[in-house]
């Protein structure tokens, strides 16, 4: 589904990703972990096409298409979804309006008929159950005045509505209490199926108790420093990241050649 080959990218001339290789197949859940500044959020943003980041080398194929050529909205319509670490507020635009517009853009892209407001309302009601959100959220402006937990739930609701092929969750667990984390993770698990894939970008192992990945990749200094199964996350929890950092800097791990 997704193939990242020797990806180099940065911001304002500073290289942050220094040769990432990663392959993701449908039905898989991958966790990308790593210390602050290792480049995990950059990877998420580069996949979604954030305009501030510049790709200097390498390629990214999504279902065989060159993803890097596409504008952010085109990527989204192709089926890539990013749950933001800090969801953005859009004053004056209701959640329902926003979601219907996004949903219909995707339908149009797939050559399907657009839903009218009533039809969409039914769909929205159905999907909202995934994240246990009530109807009052739909008439409120997008993320405006939402608590941290509500914003994250709203991200997963959008994922439920847009049904992406590949969901990239950027630090979705940050700032969540245990109940909100349970709801958000429950939502992701319900939405995951053999036809789609999920990338979890996280600093902590905590989220992985709720959403269990098959693969764990650890980033350090812009490269994948270590890869393994879900047990790697537990190891990191115990040992922290420091040993990896030094190893990556001196190149002694040698997992990844660029």
């Amino acid at each position, binding site marked *: 589904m997704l193939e990242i080959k020797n990806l180099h990218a940065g911001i304002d001339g500073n290289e942050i990703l220094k040769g990432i290789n990663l392959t993701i197949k449908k039905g898989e859940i991958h966790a990308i972990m790593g210390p602050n500044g290792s480049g995990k959020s950059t990877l998420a943003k580069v996949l*979604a*096409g*954030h*305009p*501030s980041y510049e790709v200097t080398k390498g390629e990214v194929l999504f279902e065989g298409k060159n993803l890097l050529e596409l*504008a*952010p*909205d085109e*990527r*989204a*319509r192709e089926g890539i*979804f*990013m749950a*933001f670490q800090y*969801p*953005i*507020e*859009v*004053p*004056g*635009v209701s959640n329902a*309006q*926003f979601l*219907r*517009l*996004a949903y219909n*853009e*995707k339908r149009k*892209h797939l050559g399907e008929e657009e839903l009218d*407001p009533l039809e969409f309302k039914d769909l929205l009601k159905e999907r909202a159950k995934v994240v246990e959100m009530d109807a009052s959220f739909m008439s409120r*402006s997008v993320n405006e005045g939402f608590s941290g937990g509500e914003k994250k739930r709203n991200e997963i609701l*959008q994922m439920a509505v*847009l049904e992406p092929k590949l969901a990239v969750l950027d630090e979705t667990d940050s700032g969540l209490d245990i109940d909100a984390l349970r709801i958000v993770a429950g939502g992701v698990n319900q939405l995951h199926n053999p036809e789609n894939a999920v990338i979890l970008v996280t600093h902590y192992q905590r989220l992985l108790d709720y959403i269990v990945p098959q693969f764990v990749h650890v980033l350090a200094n812009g490269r994948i420093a270590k890869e393994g199964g879900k047990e790697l996350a537990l190891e990191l929890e115990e040992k922290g990241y420091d040993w990896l950092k030094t190893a990556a800097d001196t190149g002694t791990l040698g997992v990844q050649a660029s």
Partner: protein
Amino acid sequence: MSTVEILSKQEYKYGFVTDIESDVIPRGLTEDTIRLIAAKKNEPDWMLEFRLKAYRHWLTMTEPTHWPNISYPKIDYQDVIYYSAPKQKAVKASLDEVDPELLKTFEKLGIPLTEQKQLAGVAVDAIFDSVSVATTYKEKLKKHGVIFCSFTEAIKDYPDLIKKYLGSVVPTNDNFFAALNSAVFSDGSFCFIPKGVRCPMELSTYFRINNSESGQFERTLIVAEEGAYVSYLEGCTAPKFDKNQLHAAVVELVALDDAQIKYSTVQNWYAGDENGVGGIYNFVTKRGKCAGKNSKISWTQVETGSAITWKYPSCILQGDNSIGEFYSVALTNHAQQADTGTKMIHLGKNTRSTIISKGIAAGKSNNSYRGLVKVMPKAENARNYTQCDSMLIGSNCGANTFPYIEVMNNSSNVEHEASTSKISEEQLFYLQQRGISQEDAVSLIINGFCKDVFLQLPMEFAVEATRLLGMKLEGSVG
């Protein structure tokens, strides 16, 4: 593509010219011009006197050029044509006898006038250059006692009402442009809603400037008697010309006890091109008087057109418990300049006013809010709330806020808030990440910014306004 470029791409769809033979008087303005206009319109002497008095006063006045935040080359008032009317049969037995070329023009503008196609629920007075060419649903409205006709007809058929109310809110010597209008106005709309009547449909005037050399000077007068209600809409467009045309209108509203007038404008005059060539100079005096107790006047405006906008729809809150409202969206792009806002003059007890203004500046434009809230000594318990928000798109434009607050009563409460924001790159990226194109994302954000004002517009106008700002939300606004 930058948001500025997206906005710049929008085409002006109403820039066509109607090819029609017109009755045009020579350019220039003297007492003879005024006598000529009055003669062409067969006006009674009292009307000519009104005009001449205004003209003589106008001669003593100077154009207000120092305080508004706008600049333009000096206008040569002797180089303007003050009357231009399409040639057609003098008496029209029915709407179907109106020149097909004119009907076609208005249809193209989305205002079908013939009986088969008339807009349901909206009566329209269509004004082409200096004259009203048709008014729909006149008879139906008459059954309810509602008078809705061109100003020319009103002078002929309802002289007592005109004498009583014309100039009662905006005196002929009120300001330079109002005086000019009072001297030369050629047509406009008159609405009268008698006591206790709730007008059964929306009333609307559509203004079209066609002649490249003429100015448009129209006059609107709306009177709502005790307990009456009316919602009135105004739309305007003009062809694209390289020259500037002058538009100096006067609108007067009178609301007696318990009456309500809701006045909505979508102003889309030609704004000139991206270098500021051409476009309408829009100098308009709009004022409503809440003369009676518990009366209410509400102005809603969406200003997207005109090279220059100078306009302050105001409320004189004379009756106790009367209410004034002003909701405004002003979008300026390219070289447009807007100095617009309102005046709320609190005279009566327990009077209340609300001002919500949203200014959006793009390109090299300059967008100013100017508003006066004045609470007089006898306006006990007066209340005002003002909110002015500006959005700047690009770094070559300007957004200014000039509120004047004058309070002479200690039981009153006046509150003013203003803020400035921009469309952030993060906001755009977020929307794009959900599959919404950049163009639509810009529109969506602007629409959200303006929501509080759009909510005040009647349904048909809300759609128009949304579309005007480049929306794709199809009626789901609000």
